[in-house]
């Protein structure tokens, strides 16, 4: 009675085909990641050593290590985080918890979306005009990090707002009904529950910040600097620009060096992602719902 008709069989076949097709497409996604990592490890692996990580570049950057670039990237990322996370989280809190749905709010949302769509080279020129020249920070870590912060602000805002909105409204209502103010609710209930999502935003920012080249090229990154930065008003080398420089500007760089720099850069980002994922899993494990 329930024997498969020809139609049923055809449907099942088509179903199977599409399933397979989608699977392939998903695999294609993994392919570039695997290839990039594979090539970097095979060709850049031999360059990696303690000496490579912790010494100064020598002989026109064709030998020696990448220490100033490594330290410089950490500086840039940390200062950018300090500048953008408080602002981004506060803005997201306002938009998610306080803002009424009116024209101003919609205008702000539109501005955030547009900010996210501005090409990084435009941010670079903005940073040059605003931070380097107008505010007189000079080409410095401060100017470069602020440029990066402006650029990554939308990422932080959007990720934070989304994670705030995953906290059920019932939690807030329960709180308000107990007589808590909005701020008390945010402090004790909303933020603690949304922290893992906020961390995701921060991590995305770190990944993007550490790889950006254009915004720091005009605002703070140096082609070469034989010293570690001493403060935020110093210039610095950075991994991304160093990679660009030794691949395109310096003659006679041994082939494994650019691959080595790329490998270190990507490992840094992956390690940071790993730490934060572990932290998120830990926090999520403590969720009671």
């Amino acid at each position, binding site marked *: 009675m329930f024997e498969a008709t020809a139609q049923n069989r055809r449907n099942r076949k088509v179903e199977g085909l599409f399933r397979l097709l989608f699977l392939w497409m998903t695999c294609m996604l993994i392919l570039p990641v695997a290839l990039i990592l594979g090539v970097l490890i095979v060709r850049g692996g031999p360059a990696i050593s303690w000496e490579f990580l912790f010494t100064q570049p020598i002989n026109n950057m064709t030998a020696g290590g990448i220490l100033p670039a490594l330290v410089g990237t950490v*500086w840039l990322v940390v*200062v950018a985080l300090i500048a953008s996370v408080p602002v981004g989280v506060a803005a997201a809190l306002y938009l998610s918890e306080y803002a009424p749905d009116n024209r101003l709010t919609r205008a702000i949302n539109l501005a955030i979306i547009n900010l996210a769509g501005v090409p990084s080279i435009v941010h670079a020129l903005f940073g040059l005009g605003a931070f380097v020249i107008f505010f007189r920070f*000079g080409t410095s870590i401060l100017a470069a990090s602020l440029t990066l912060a402006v650029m990554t602000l939308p990422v932080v805002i959007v990720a934070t707002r989304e994670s705030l909105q995953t906290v059920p409204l019932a939690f807030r209502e329960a709180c308000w009904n107990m007589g808590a103010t909005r701020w008390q609710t945010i402090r004790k209930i909303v933020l*603690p529950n949304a922290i893992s999502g906020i961390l995701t935003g921060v991590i995305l920012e770190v990944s993007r910040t550490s790889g950006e080249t254009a915004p720091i090229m005009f605002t703070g990154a140096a082609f070469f600097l034989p010293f570690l930065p001493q*403060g*935020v008003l110093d210039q610095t080398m950075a991994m991304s620009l160093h990679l660009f420089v030794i691949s395109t*500007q310096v003659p006679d760089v041994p082939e494994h060096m650019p691959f080595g720099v790329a490998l270190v850069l990507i490992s840094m980002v992956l390690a940071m992602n790993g730490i934060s994922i572990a932290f998120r899993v830990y926090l999520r494990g403590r969720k009671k719902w």
Partner: protein
Amino acid sequence: MKTTKPAFVSCVLALSAVLVVACGGGGGSSRSLIQNKGSDTLVNVAQAWAEEYAVVAPGIAVAVTGGGSGTGIAAMINGTVDIANSSRKMKDSELELARGNGNEPIEFVVGYDALAVYVHPDNPMDEVSLDQLAALYGEGGDIESWSQYGVEVPGCSSDEIVRVSRQNNSGTYVYFREAVLGDRRDFRLGSRDMHGSKDVVDLVENTPCAIGYSGLAYATDHVKMPCVRQGEDGDCVSPSVETAIDGSYPIARPLFMYTAGEPEGAIRDYIDWVLSDEGQCIIYDKGYAPRGDVDCS
């Protein structure tokens, strides 16, 4: 819900700890940093100077940035750089702008560079005249193919010449135009405009049909540099440090450093060191001509 509080607090603590560290570090920033920016032609020798100067004067950090002569000059005008490198002279209009901002640029010639013409190693062309280069690169020029030069290039079946040039804020671009095309004549459209001196050589190395110009210092064993003839019956002179120094090579140019105002203190010391025999031997080592006779043996 109470239980997640320590995690949140720790996160805030971590961030503020970083803030304190960063600000603490910020206070120590000193004026011992010399910012040196500009010409891509000079960037590698500027880097070598900075690297060596770190040994000579360990208290002074020289931060080198490339981007092109135009970038360095713009930074000089805006007052965001201590020393601007340039492979061309600053124009009067640029000097005016800088003075308007209270920065009187002071010029130092730090060496000379020969602009070599590069072709693929399989290319049989051994010499080229300035007129031929002008007819190839200049607006309204009529040279399109290798056969017009009277050569047949193995590996270039199309016979069409791939012209490699530079982006227009490059000092090399400006100087080539002055020296080869003449002030009034513009470049012809359709060239490949590369963003670095090394890029030009890299491209020519891998393209049998190509011809390009770039600093002699970027020469490798995988490209050929034909000698350059000035006028119809002049000698054909090969690009080299020696021919750049004695002035016989027709497309050699001075390289400049500009400071904002008469340099003082650490900047003065650095410029003096660059112009000393020690500094000049470094530029010689990198394939450029020093400004005078130095003994670098």
